[in-house]
C-alpha cells in the first residue's frame, strides 16, 4: 500500500510538470490548430535561464522560496520572449499556408533550438543549483514507509497556483476573452475589432512562460539539465494534451496527471524502459478510439 502511495506521489509531481508544458501546447493548438513542436525546447531554455540566473545572481547561496521565485520569474520572462520570437519569426509569416508547411517549420524550429542549445549551453549535462533546501531531516519527509520529497510538494503547489492564475486570465480578463474569441474564429474576432495577431502573440507568451516555469521546477527536482531534455517531456506533454482533449486547458491538466500517474505505475510495477512506449501507446489508442480526448466535446471552451 505504501509502495502504491509512493508511486502516486511521484506520479503526481511528474504529472504536474507535464501539465505546465501541456497547457502551452493546448493553448497554441486551440488558437492556431498548430502543434508547436518547439514547445519542449522552450521548456529546456527555461531550465537553462533558471540555472544561469541563479548562478549569476548567486541565488543558490541563500536557498529559499524567494530565490526560487526570482529564478522562476526570470525564466518565465525569458521564455515568454523566446515564445514571442518563435511565433513572430517562424509561424506568423506562414499564416494561411498549408498546414504541412507549418508543421515542418515547427519541427525545424524544434531541431534548431535543440542543436543551437548544444552550441550555446554545451552538450554535456549541467547541474541545476539547489535553490531550495528543506528543513526536514535529510531533505525528505517520512511518514512511516512513505517518503515525500518536500520539493515535490513545492512543485505541485506552484503548478496549481500557476494554473489557477491562468484560469483567471482566460476567463476573467479582457485578454482572456479575446483569446477565446480568436480561438473560436479568427475572422469573426478580427471583425469585432480584436487584434488577432497580438492576441496570438500573447497566447504564445503565456504558454511559453508556463513552460519556462516548468523548466525551473524540473531543475529543482531532477537537477541535471541538458539541451535535449525538452524532447521527451515535450512529446509527453503533447500526448497529455491530446489525452485530455486538445484545446482544453483543464483537459490538458487532467491528461497530464493521468499520464504522470500511469508512467509512475509502469516504472514502479513493470519495466522503466517501457515508460516512453506507454505514453505513445496511450496516445495511439486515444486518437483511434476517442480522437476528441477525455474532455474534448464540442461544447467545451477552447483557448
Amino acid at each position, binding site marked *: 500500500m505504501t509502495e502504491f502511495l509512493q508511486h502516486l506521489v511521484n506520479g503526481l509531481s511528474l504529472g504536474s510538470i507535464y501539465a505546465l508544458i501541456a497547457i502551452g501546447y493546448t493553448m497554441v493548438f486551440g488558437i492556431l490548430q498548430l502543434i508547436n513542436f518547439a514547445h519542449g525546447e522552450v521548456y529546456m531554455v527555461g531550465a537553462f535561464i533558471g540555472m544561469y540566473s541563479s548562478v549569476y545572481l548567486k541565488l543558490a547561496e541563500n536557498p529559499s522560496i524567494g530565490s526560487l521565485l526570482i529564478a522562476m520569474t526570470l525564466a518565465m520572462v525569458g521564455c515568454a520572449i523566446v515564445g514571442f520570437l518563435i511565433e513572430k519569426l517562424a509561424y506568423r509569416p506562414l499564416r494561411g499556408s498549408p498546414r504541412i508547411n507549418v508543421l515542418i517549420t515547427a*519541427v525545424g524550429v524544434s*531541431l534548431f533550438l535543440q*542543436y*543551437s542549445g548544444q*552550441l550555446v549551453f554545451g552538450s554535456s549535462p549541467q547541474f541545476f543549483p539547489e535553490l531550495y533546501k528543506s528543513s526536514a531531516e535529510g531533505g525528505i519527509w517520512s511518514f512511516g514507509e512513505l517518503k515525500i520529497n518536500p520539493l515535490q510538494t513545492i512543485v505541485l503547489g506552484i503548478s496549481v497556483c500557476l494554473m489557477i492564475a491562468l484560469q483567471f486570465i482566460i476567463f476573467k480578463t479582457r485578454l482572456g476573452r479575446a483569446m477565446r474569441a480568436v480561438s473560436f474564429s479568427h475572422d469573426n474576432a478580427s471583425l469585432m475589432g480584436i487584434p488577432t495577431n497580438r492576441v496570438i502573440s500573447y497566447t504564445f507568451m503565456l504558454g511559453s512562460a508556463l513552460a519556462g516555469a516548468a523548466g525551473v521546477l524540473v531543475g529543482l527536482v531532477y537537477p541535471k539539465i541538458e539541451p535535449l531534455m525538452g524532447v521527451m517531456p515535450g512529446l509527453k506533454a503533447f500526448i497529455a494534451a491530446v489525452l485530455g482533449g486538445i484545446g482544453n486547458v483543464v483537459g490538458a491538466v487532467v491528461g497530464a496527471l493521468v499520464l504522470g500517474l500511469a508512467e509512475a505505475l509502469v516504472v514502479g510495477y513493470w519495466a522503466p*524502459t517501457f515508460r516512453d512506449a506507454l505514453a505513445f501507446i496511450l496516445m495511439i489508442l486515444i486518437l483511434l478510439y476517442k480522437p476528441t480526448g477525455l474532455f474534448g466535446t464540442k461544447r467545451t471552451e477552447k483557448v
Partner: protein
Amino acid sequence: MDLSLQKTARLKSFGGWGAAVAAIWILNFFIQDIVDPYVFSVIMYAGINITLAVSLNLINGFTGQFSMGHAGFMSVGGYISAFIFMNLPPEFSHDPILSQFTFVGALIVAGLGAALIGYIVGLPSLRLRGDYLAIVTLGFGEIIRVIILNVDAIGGARGLPSIPQLSSFAWVYTVAVVTTFTIWQLIKSSQGRAFMSVREDEIAAESMGVDTTKTKVQAFVIGAFFAGIAGALFGHYLRYLNPQTFDFNRSFEIIIIVVLGGMGSITGSIFSAVLLTALKEVLRDLKEYTGVDLRMIIYSLLLIVFMLTRPNGIFGTRELPEIISDLKKKFGYRKKSDKVGSKS
C-alpha cells in the same frame, strides 16, 4: 502517338534503367580502387539515403500523408535481415556465391517484414490527418525502438554486432535504382494519379471513385517495404545495429532530405539525398575545426528558411525530363519545328 510508338518509347525508357544497373555492376569491380575508403563510405550512405528518401517521398510527397516514422521501418528491416543471418550456419555469410543469394532473399524478407509493419502503421492514417498522423507515426517509430530495446534475442540496448558485411556498392545502388524505377513507374501510372489525388483533395478523390483507404495504406506498405530494404543494407554495411541509431532524429533526417528536395519530386529526393549526405561530411570536417556540431543547426535553419521562402523545396514537383527541357528553352536551344514557327 500510336500504340507501337508508345511501346518503343516505354522499352527505350526501360533500357535506360537497365543500362544504369549494368553500369553499376561494372563500376562495382573497380570503384573501391579509384576512390579512397572514406569517400566510398559517403557514396554508400548516399545510396542508402536515396532509397530512404524516394520511398518516404511516396508517402509524404505524393500521397500527402506526413509520416515521421521512417526510421522505424528501417530498423525493422535491418534487424530482420541481421536476425536471419544470425540463425543461419556461417557458410551462408561467407560463401561468396551462396551469401549473395541468401542476401537477396534476406533483403526481400526484410522488406516484407517492414511492409507488414507499414500496413499496421498505415491503418491509423485512415482516421487521422496532418499533424495527428505525423505524431502517431512518430509514436509508432518510438514504440518499435522501445520493443527492440527490450528484446534480448537481438541484442537489446547493447545492439547487434558482427553482422556479415554484404552490402556492396552494386547492391546499394541496384536497390536505389529499383526503388526509383518502381516508384517512378507507379507515379506515372493511373495508380500514381490516385496517390496524388489523395494528396490534393481526399473528398474529391473519393467522389471520383478513388479508394482513398486502399491508396493510403498502399503508400505506407510500399514506402515501408523499401525503407526496410534500406535498413537491411545499412545494417549489412555498418555491420552493427543499435536501436539508438533509429530514433526520431533519424526520421527527421530523411524528412529533411525529402522536404528540401521537393515533396513530390523523385529527382529532388535523389539530388538532395546526395547533397545532404555529402554536406554532412563537409560539416564533419568543419566540426573538427570549430569544435561544435553545426550540421543539425544548418539543416534545421535550411528547413525553416525553405518553408518561409520556397516551401516546395528545390525542385517542387518537377522531374528530370521537365527540368532538362526547361533548361534547353532557357539557353536558346530550339527544336526545328519551333524555328519554323518563329519565322512567321
